Every structure is written in structure tokens, then in C-alpha cells.
């Protein structure tokens, strides 16, 4: 299942760096693929993707698709933004518990008519900026 891709007519304010290792994540995200590394030894996902499993220290990591659905654990709207984010402020960010049992943090996108509240279901999506993608959550 691929994520909804929403075009954004600007460049990313603070673009993430990419390594040879994280390249599959960012290039996959560009096409709507939502994935991370899963440990072949202990079976646990980790996010952000890592070459060594933080749980059992095995380096037998493989890319696997992640569930795009989760629950909003918490959120805030940032009004006092760093210089590069100032023209986007105020903007919301959040902590999401994915259905697979993984906690992540991301930008939180408005859905008309839905109020942000801990506990509401959310889905991941791709914000496709002119220079590359970022992942974000939005009320489902």
C-alpha cells in the first residue's frame, strides 16, 4: 500500500541528509513507499531506519513496508519557529504510535473538520516538496 502524495509548491525548509544506507528510504518515500528496517534476527522494526538493530545489535536488517496507520499520541502547534521554518509557522507536529507498535514523530497536516486530539486515528502521507519528500501524519 502506497502513501498519498501531496505536492507542496516550495522547497523543504531544512532538507534531511541522505546516506547510502538511508537512500532507499528517501527514494522510496518519493514514490509513496513507507518503509523502514526490520531485524531478521529479532523481528523488530526500528525507525528511523538503522544499519544495526538497536534491540539485539544484529546487522541483518532488511527493508520492509510499514503500516501507514496509527494513533495520534500527542501533538503541538509551533508558533516560535527557527529562521528557516518561520514562513511556515504556525505548523503542527506530532508523535504517532503506528499500528505495528512503533512510535515516530512527524509533521502533522490538517484535515478539514477534524480537531487534533490524542487518541484519534491518523495516517501517514508524503509531502512532495520541489526538492524532495518529507513524511507527515494526518487525521485518518
Amino acid at each position: 500500500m502506497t502513501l498519498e502524495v501531496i505536492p507542496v509548491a516550495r522547497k523543504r525548509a531544512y532538507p534531511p541528509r541522505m546516506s547510502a544506507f538511508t537512500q532507499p528510504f528517501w527514494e522510496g518515500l518519493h514514490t509513496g513507499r513507507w518503509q523502514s528496517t526490520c531485524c531478521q534476527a529479532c523481528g523488530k522494526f526500528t525507525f528511523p531506519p538503522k544499519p544495526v538493530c538497536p534491540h539485539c545489535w544484529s546487522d541483518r536488517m532488511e527493508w520492509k513496508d510499514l503500516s501507514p496507520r496509527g494513533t495520534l499520541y500527542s501533538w503541538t502547534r509551533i508558533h516560535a519557529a527557527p529562521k528557516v521554518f518561520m514562513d511556515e509557522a504556525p505548523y503542527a507536529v506530532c508523535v504517532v504510535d503506528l499500528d505495528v507498535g512503533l512510535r515516530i514523530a512527524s509533521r502533522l497536516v490538517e484535515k478539514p473538520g477534524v480537531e487534533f486530539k490524542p487518541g484519534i486515528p491518523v495516517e501517514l502521507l508524503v509531502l512532495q516538496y520541489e526538492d524532495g519528500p518529507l513524511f507527515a501524519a494526518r487525521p485518518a
Partner: protein
Amino acid sequence: MSTRVAIIGTSAIPVGRHQTRSDEPLQVMEQEIMTRLVVDAVRDAGVDRQDIESLVFTVPRPYTLQKYFHTFLVSHLRLACTGNVMEVMGNGMTGALAFDQACNEILLGRAKVALALGINMEAATPSAEHAMSSMRTTGDVDFQTSGGFIPISWYAMDAMRYMHDHGATREQFAAVAVKNRHHASLNPLAQYRKPITLQEVLEQRPIVEPLGLYDVPGRSDGAACLVLASEEVARSLGKPYVLVRGRGFSHDGSHQINEIPNDMTELIAAKRASATAYEQAGITAEQIDIAEFYAPCTIVEILVSEAVGFFGRGRGAPAAAEGETKLGGRIPISTSGGLTSRGHPAYVTSLYNLVEMTDQLCGRAGERQVPDARLGLATGELGNYNAALVHVLEAQR
């Protein structure tokens, strides 16, 4: 008997705006402030300069032009040392770590007298510009900072979740800001001293929802110096001192959020570190008379008050609103005014907290003195309390 560590002297400049903009013709120089502070603190302690064998500095902000400030300052005071002379860095925990390392110098027998000191200059640097650096101090710079997170956004999410889980209100958070401003009004070292009302706190513009301007710290410069000594030296001086009775450190193994979903507002590291410190001191949380927390936002003071065992889960906010943590309450917290009103020169914030502890436990806190304060608790932290460093202190009068 094994060695124990005491705080025997302190000095600090009032927290506020001291840094000069780089284009101003006359610059405020860090070494001019620090040399005076060392002389003041050592005079307050009543020891000789020859007794100082180790100095542990907090790392300066990147805006401090003079690099390796620690060894530079030692030359200004011509202190020849056989214990370590070093700078430590631990993000928000920096001040607490400097103190803890200075304790170690004494416990290792490298010094009978050691200084924990530092200066944090940043307030003339515009907030949006400073945030370009501070946004890289929490979270993952590629996977989270790219989304726009800033350090206090994590605390704001604590607040939002805590309200959801425990039915706390913004009014209860605001009560912490009002209380700390009152404490600051009695503290000559505090940055913001004009009393404020609950209504005024609630009416401030939002910064990171649900927290408004008075729920979060302002921008601060500060500098402080603590003189530490072996208990033997402290006793020989024939005046009140503060004994370090327990130390506890805990890192929960995560960075901002635990990727295995947990109760984020439980602050497990603070819980564990304080348990260790209580055990070492042979006391329980109920015996603490006074506390100074590293709590950048109102919500954090509430969460730490629960984590260190002063209140049950969810009771911290109503307890603060009911006045249990103000001067005269059951357990006064942040009698200095805390980070929101005393001020928050981040790398030396914990040094200021320990200055307040020393003033209180030595019975020299003036109008904000907690009568008969005997046992005190100080916390330092980094991240979203992913790590905590806790000290239990005891008055010796």
C-alpha cells in the same frame, strides 16, 4: 570514613541580558565576569586559592569567541592544578554534570577543593537564529528536525498528552508560572521579577500549544561558580555548608521519544535517578523539604514533581494549583523562580539551581527562606528527560 562532598561557597551574576551584539563597539568579555565570580565564590567559601586543585567548567555557547575557555580562565587566575581542569557538555544537563564531575574530583582524591563553574552567553542572538542551532539539539536532525521540531515542542507534547491522560488544565500549568514569578520577585538573581496573575499567563500568545509565552523560558545569560570541598575541609571552616548525600543518574536509552510506545510523561529516567539518590542518602521522597528542578516549561515542573515521588501520577498539576509547591506550601519547588522566571541560561541553569539550594540550606535565602530546610533535591536532565541527574543535599548548620 569514606570521603563526602560539600558545597562551601557560591557566586553568580543576576540572570538576564549580558551578551553584547557582535557589532557593538564595547564588548562584554566572559573572562572579566568569570574571574570576579571565582574570587567572590572562593571568598564566600573561606578557603585559600592554593587549596583549589580542580576546575570543571560548563562548555560555553558557540557565541563565546574564546575557545577552550577553561584553560584560558585558569591563566587569568594563575591556578596551578593537579586535579582535572576541563569543560563538560551534556546539553541541558551540562551544569549538573559539571557539578557531578567536580564531586568526582574530590571523591577520587584528586582535589580537596574543586570549582564547578561556567558562563552561558546567548541573549543578544535573535531567537529565530539561536533556534537554528538549538533545533539540532533534540530529536533526529534528519528524520525529525526536517519536520520543524524545536526543543520545547517535545515538552508541549508532554503537556498535551498529560492533559489528555489526567484531565489537567492550562490553568493548572499557569499556576506554576504565577508561583515561580512570585518566588522570583524575592530573588535578586532572577531575570523576571514583576508579579503576574493567572489571567495574564493564560492571555499570553501561544508559543508551542498548549503552552504560552509565560509557560516557557525566555532567553537568558548567566554565570555562576560553586566551591566544592571534602567534608573534612568544609567542617574545618566552622560555618554552614551543604553536604551531597546522594547522587543518581539514569538514561532511559531513548532520544526524545521511545520507539517502543511508553508513557512519555512518566519521565522514567527521573524516577530511577531520584530512587538511586534517595537510596544512597537513606531517605524517602517525603523527607525532602525543598527542590529545584531543571524544568524549562511549567508542565515539566509538574511531571518531575510526580517522577521524583512528591505526588502520585496525575496529582502534580492539581497540587501545584492548590499551592502545595509554593513558598509556605507542603514542598516548595523552584524557590529561585525556576527556569521561567529566575531565568534559563541553559548550560549553567543547574549551577543556579545549586546556588539556590545552597542559599536555602545554609539559611541565607532572605525573604524566600524556607524555614528549617534540611534536605533538598536538585535535578538536571537532557532531551525530554531521557536522562536525569539527581542530587540529594543536606544542610549542615
